[in-house]
């Protein structure tokens, strides 16, 4: 009997992919190590190589098919040769399951976060439409967003790249450095095409030496150059945190204003999917603690583009906390050449009168989803996207709480001394008399991130957690 060849998972966040090309046709003999197909994952085009030998009897998914889900059968191989196959594994980086479909697994390889993020772009658009309506009705009192004119959907990945490209074109002192940013086009493909356009003096691959190259970049910034330092993920910024805090953040003050440090530190922050404790941590609270730093955390593509451009132009050190799971998500983004967002201003993503939900980064999407669910139950939540964590837009938050009288904060990071703690305290200081219930924080669990799929899911905040928290503060 033949065996089915299944669509392989080829990245931590891949749930489906495009079968871009078959390199074998029906009837072809397949040897171990032969490339049989090309698959486009969420990150790259990958070659699929055969493990066993046999004849390709049937192609089940024609080339060009998009959205082929992981583990669905894509072809059939007659297993005749399988026993005699050299059990050598293929080269390169592919895994080709040639077994019958597996029994329903207890765990899913892709983290729950990835799934929860699937329609952030849509939820953003619905919130926006609703927000405009509400604003007209006079419900929302916050300063309206500047109208940047026409928009088009782009991914967060494209937004970040476009921001760097625009600023590098405008200012020859801006350059990018980090691990795999140049020839590899970025570990997460953020810097795609930059090496081509700007050359190796301005797009620099560094060795894996975070402490050293961060210090080098800070030193360069002291002379007025404007480095963008990409950390492959913010987990690795820990190797360099001394230079960020002791050198970048404090030199202006220590020099009595002589030496500024116009530098950007950017990269993915927080949990990705199933990468465990050392690779799944939110650093918002760590960096927000430090005077002399600015910290922003984009959610949408517009946030990403507008805030990164502002960060690059800012004469101070700015930490840009991105999120890997959002990189592939599309959102409407203004097309205007000069589009930029101010650091220090929050955005009301969705207007509402019953409760204020404050969130940043990926948690904004969860908050928006929770708000839709709550609306169906008659609770109108106002969702504030912080965008900037330091400085914090305390005024927008307080004004909102004065209307809603209730506060829920949402973030992925740990609860102890986190951003929600700071937001709640500032609300207490500014609007204590308006609060009708104690604020509630929805956070990641107070533990290192576990690897197991079921535990990881439990460790991260969910939409249901947010709905539950809102019910607590609204006594519903």
């Amino acid at each position: 009997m033949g065996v089915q060849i299944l669509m392989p998972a080829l990245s931590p966040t891949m749930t489906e992919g495009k079968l871009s090309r078959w390199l074998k046709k029906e009837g072809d003999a397949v040897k171990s190590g032969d490339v049989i197909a090309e698959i486009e994952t969420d990150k790259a085009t990958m070659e699929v190589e055969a493990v066993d030998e046999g004849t390709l009897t049937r192609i089940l998914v024609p080339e060009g098919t998009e959205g082929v889900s992981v583990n669905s059968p894509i072809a059939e191989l007659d297993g005749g040769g399988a026993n005699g196959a050299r059990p050598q594994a293929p080269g390169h980086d592919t895994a080709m399951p040639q077994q019958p479909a597996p029994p329903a697994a207890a765990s899913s390889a892709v983290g729950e976060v990835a799934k929860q993020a699937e329609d952030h772009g849509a939820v953003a658009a619905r919130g926006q439409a609703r927000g405009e309506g509400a604003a007209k009705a006079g419900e929302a009192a916050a300063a309206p967003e500047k109208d940047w004119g026409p928009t088009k959907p782009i991914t967060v990945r494209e937004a970040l790249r476009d921001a760097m490209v625009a600023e590098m074109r405008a200012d020859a002192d801006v350059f990018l450095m980090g691990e795999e940013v140049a020839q590899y086009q970025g570990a997460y493909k953020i810097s795609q095409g930059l090496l081509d356009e700007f050359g190796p003096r301005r797009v620099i691959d560094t060795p894996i030496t975070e402490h050293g190259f961060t210090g080098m970049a800070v030193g360069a910034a002291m002379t007025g150059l404007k480095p963008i330092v990409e950390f492959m993920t913010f987990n690795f910024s820990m190797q360099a945190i001394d230079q960020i805090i002791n050198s970048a953040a404090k030199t202006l003050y220590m020099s009595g204003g002589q030496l500024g440090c116009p530098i950007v530190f950017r990269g993915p922050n927080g949990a990705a999917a199933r990468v465990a404790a050392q690779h799944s941590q939110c650093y918002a609270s760590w960096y927000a603690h430090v005077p002399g730093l600015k910290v922003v955390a984009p959610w949408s593509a517009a946030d990403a583009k507008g805030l990164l451009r502002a960060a690059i132009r800012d004469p101070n050190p700015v930490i840009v906390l991105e999120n890997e799971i959002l990189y592939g998500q599309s959102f409407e983004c203004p097309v205007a050449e000069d589009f930029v967002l101010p650091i220090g201003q929050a955005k009301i993503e969705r207007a509402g009168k019953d409760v204020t939900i404050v969130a940043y980064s990926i948690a904004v999407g969860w908050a928006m989803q929770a708000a839709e669910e709550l609306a169906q139950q008659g609770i109108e939540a106002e969702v504030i996207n912080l965008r900037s964590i330091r400085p914090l837009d305390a005024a927008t938050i307080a004004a909102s709480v004065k209307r809603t009288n209730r506060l829920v904060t949402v973030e992925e990071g740990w609860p102890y001394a986190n951003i929600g703690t700071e937001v709640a305290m500032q609300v207490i200081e500014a609007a204590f008399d308006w609060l009708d219930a104690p604020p509630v924080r929805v956070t990641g669990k107070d533990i290192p991130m576990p690897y197991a799929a079921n535990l990881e899911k439990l460790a991260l905040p969910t939409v249901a957690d947010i709905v539950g928290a809102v019910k607590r503060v609204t006594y519903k």
Partner: protein
Amino acid sequence: MAQAADTAGAKRRTRATKEPAMSREQLLQAYHDMLLIRRFEEKAGQLYGMGLIGGFCHLYIGQEAVVVGMQACLEPGDQVITSYRDHGHMLATGMEARGVMAELTGRIGGYSKGKGGSMHMFSREKGFYGGHGIVGAQVSLGTGLAFSNWYREAKNVSLTYFGEGASNQGQVFESFNLAALMKLPNIFIIENNKYGMGTSVERASASRDLSKNASPWGIPGEQVNGMDVMAVKEAGERAVAHCRAGNGPYLLEMKTYRYRGHSMSDPAKYRTREEVQKMREQSDPIETARKALLDQGGTEAELKRIDDEVKAIVQDAADFAQTSPEPDERELWTDVLIEEAR
């Protein structure tokens, strides 16, 4: 200084002038162990493709001779520590395939109860101290393992493995100095597989001979053919003897190669298929051992028996890894801190 002379990296003895580095029995065992790692990793790759393993999964295929040859030099109580590319090291230290595979699938039967995953497994019993995800971090930790041997006046040595990419991290050089200063019994093992993710060693390091990287501190270093388990064993014995005799640390640069991508999601565009193919065809450590065994009068039947045995171990591990249950929800909150004594 006697050690300083060694830092030239000269391969002092040739195999012809002395006993072979491995007896036939030892070579058979090494063949078995390398094959086990190879088959285990292939299975892990398949389970990853099926979505049963998530996150990062860094396979050791191609590098098997390094860890198997070094392990053959060790005695009980010696310690091993490495990076995230750790499945081979664990199997070599004698950790069970079942427990390693079940950790990859995130199940309770895994070495870390499913909480650590591919990059984070440990076994104090087998002297394996992880499984570390931050590039370079294990090098200072390994120096600390050696420190404990010095402190306790034990004759044990610590094997500290790291990639050539990691070899540029600042704390590696800090560790060289510490270990040399205190004469710690640490063997620094650079697994030079030519690439750190997509960056070739030439693009990451200005040092053209990594075995000399610790020479300013008087640490002897050697370049070793890491694709030949006997060459590894031979150099390993020298390094271990040096450390056990109280002469301080030693550095081995293992010239090796990884056949697969950096992790599962690496499209590997930074090297050609031909380059990979050439290494596999001309330098494969398992093929080399196989030929040596046949040359020494081994039979195909004998090797086939080993193949079958290894296949059975791996299949059993894969079955176990799929049937072991997920960790109980209560495990979320355990092991954060050790509860109060008594």
